[in-house]
């Protein structure tokens, strides 16, 4: 029997496209935060669909920690060119040089937390009133309480106890000068949904997501890529392994997983039976029980 019903991926797609169009309609200066990871790739892909055949009416903004995989940067430039979207880059190195932030010290030093300052500075400089991100509610418990339209005060802070109720699909983007919104079109997607959608739509991805040979080393249960930004500590040894990345972020806090999954079918099979969450490879979240919640309050993605 014929029934008017969408498959769940098409329903999620439609919801996300609605959110992206709502951003273009309600805000004057939005930007899409682009990390080169699969979630922000999917959001930018959905933006292309939402405004077709017109171009996406807002730029991509990459907050560059300077500690990136080469593949990520190459892909970022290629993708912006392909989608014909304007690409803006603001770098943490500039924030350090200007004395806005101080580099962390020690073996586990990371620029992950410093990004927040660079991001908030970029929002002020570019006078952005909406920053679209690829965060999903299934990623982390603090994110489970996020709205699609998430209000930020004039310090860029999130107040989880005082969020605006969000009913039906009526999004309230009204704000005072100086305040902005974070927008999360993929709120209702899970990691598996993202992978299935990438497969359905044949979306290109950086090669890092697929299994490859890499020099890595083990630190507190995680596998790290050995390279310019990650050196061996005494007692640690370099290993040659077949790995891939489940998330792609700053090199210093993104762990690899051992995997032979070299195409989307194999990745989906792997994700479907995975026994750990993808943020389990994110060392930035392992710093404390409420690491994400605390960073989000400060203005993190």
């Amino acid at each position, binding site marked *: 029997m014929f029934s008017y019903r969408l498959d769940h991926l098409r329903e999620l797609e439609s919801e996300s496209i609605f959110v992206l169009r709502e951003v273009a309609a309600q805000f004057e200066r939005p930007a899409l935060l682009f990390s080169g990871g699969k979630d922000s790739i999917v959001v930018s892909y959905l933006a292309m669909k939402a405004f077709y055949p017109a171009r996406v009416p807002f730029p991509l903004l990459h907050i560059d920690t300077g500690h990136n995989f080469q593949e990520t940067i190459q892909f970022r430039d290629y993708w912006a060119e392909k989608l014909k979207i304007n690409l803006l880059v603001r770098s943490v190195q500039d924030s350090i040089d200007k004395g806005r932030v101080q580099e962390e010290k020690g073996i586990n030093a990371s620029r992950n937390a410093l990004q927040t300052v660079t991001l908030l500075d970029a929002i002020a400089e570019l006078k952005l009133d909406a920053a679209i991100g690829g965060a999903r509610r299934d990623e982390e418990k603090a994110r*489970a309480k996020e709205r699609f339209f998430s209000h930020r005060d004039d310090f860029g802070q999130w107040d989880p106890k005082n969020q605006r109720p969000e009913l039906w699909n009526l999004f309230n983007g009204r704000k005072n000068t100086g305040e902005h919104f974070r927008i999360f079109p993929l709120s209702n997607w899970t990691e598996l949904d993202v992978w299935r959608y990438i497969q359905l739509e044949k979306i290109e991805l950086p090669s890092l997501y697929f299994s490859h040979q890499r020099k890595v080393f083990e630190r507190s249960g995680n596998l790290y890529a050995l390279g310019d930004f990650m050196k061996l500590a005494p007692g640690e040894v370099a290993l040659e392994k077949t790995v891939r990345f489940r998330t792609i972020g700053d090199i210093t806090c993104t762990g690899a997983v051992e995997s032979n999954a070299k195409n989307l079918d194999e990745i989906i099979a792997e994700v479907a039976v995975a026994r750990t969450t993808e943020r389990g490879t994110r060392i930035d979240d392992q710093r404390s029980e409420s690491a994400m919640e605390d960073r989000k309050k400060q203005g993190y993605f």
Partner: protein
Amino acid sequence: MNTQDRMPHRHDIELLRFTTCGSVDDGKSTLIGRLLLDTKNILDDQYASIQSTSTQKGFADVDLSLLTDGLKAEREQGITIDVAYRYFTTPKRKFIIADTPGHIQYTRNMVTGASTANLALILIDARKGMVEQTCRHAFIASLLRIPHVVVCINKMDLVDYSQDVYEKIVDDFSMFASRLDVQDVQFIPVSAKFGDNVVTRSHHMDWYEGTTLMFHLENVHISGDLNHIDCRFPVQYVVRPQQDEHHDYRGYAGKIAGGVFRQGDKVMVLPSGFTSRISKIDSFDGEIMEGFAPMSVTMLLEDALDISRGDMIVRENNSPQVGQDIDLMICWLNDKKMEQGNRYVLRHTTREVRCMVKDVRYKIDINTLRRIEDDAIFGMNDIGRIQLRTTSPLFFDSYRRNRNTGSVILVDESTNETVGAGMIL
């Protein structure tokens, strides 16, 4: 043209959104934890984390409710402050749970969670039976017109899996529900703690002949939940490419709020009343022969009309109500009080207008369903009937007929906060 490939009618997985109402004491978090665990949606690192917390707190068993613990402030106080969204998938369906706290001061969260749900899961503690809170949850499910309600009578293990206890609660609930407007109610006796009738059938309740909770969630018929009769297309955004190859392209982008639109259909545009035909329903993947709710599409018309965001495209012979005096049930979501004469910004579909509270008819005591007519000031969590006068007309249906075109929110212009949620009568 490949509608068939793009929009498979036979699909692998459907999406079901449900809301859970109940307090910590009802075992709501444990039930959700049980659903996630028994459908193998809990991962090793998550399980290890709650296992170590349980041990640290000196619990005998692993406390499944810890799986749904959210913010630091909530863990400290042992309460849920806000709506939390959770996800799990089975081979048949993907589920989105809007997990809402049940206490009266969180009515606004319940309303928020209920606004997008296909199904409401109401928990009753078998030892306590129907309590005020149960009435409140049932009332909100009915007010927000959640199409399906499942009443889980939990903690059956603590009443010796007694059929009498179960049936007394079924009778009490049915009696109360008869005063409400809920169409589809299912009762299921469960023990979330031990998993009886959650995902697997209980061996302790042979007298129960119904399905497990999971079976019901996977099989409840939801394809009739959206209105596919009355064609409603609120224009969200006008796509004008400003590129040579699409010189005269003028597409109306939006999400279909009701009905089915086909190429060639004669349509009418509100508020102008002009008519035209759909020349094309466009998408990135090519032309679509027919679009239906809840698809996001771009529509092109044969005639060049002046159409902008907030307008609505409908079928000529089936138009919504058009008017400036709106009768609605409202749930107040803010500490700042609402009374007759107050002015707000009103959002309805993609339209934004100003409005004034013209009349406050009554408030409802949500525990007893009694009308309160001598108190015309609405505070946080109050629900009742009011009339609004808008500065320009809305194109609306009753909420009963279409949730998309029958719902509004009110925004306080001085704080920009969302202060009211309204359902048009």
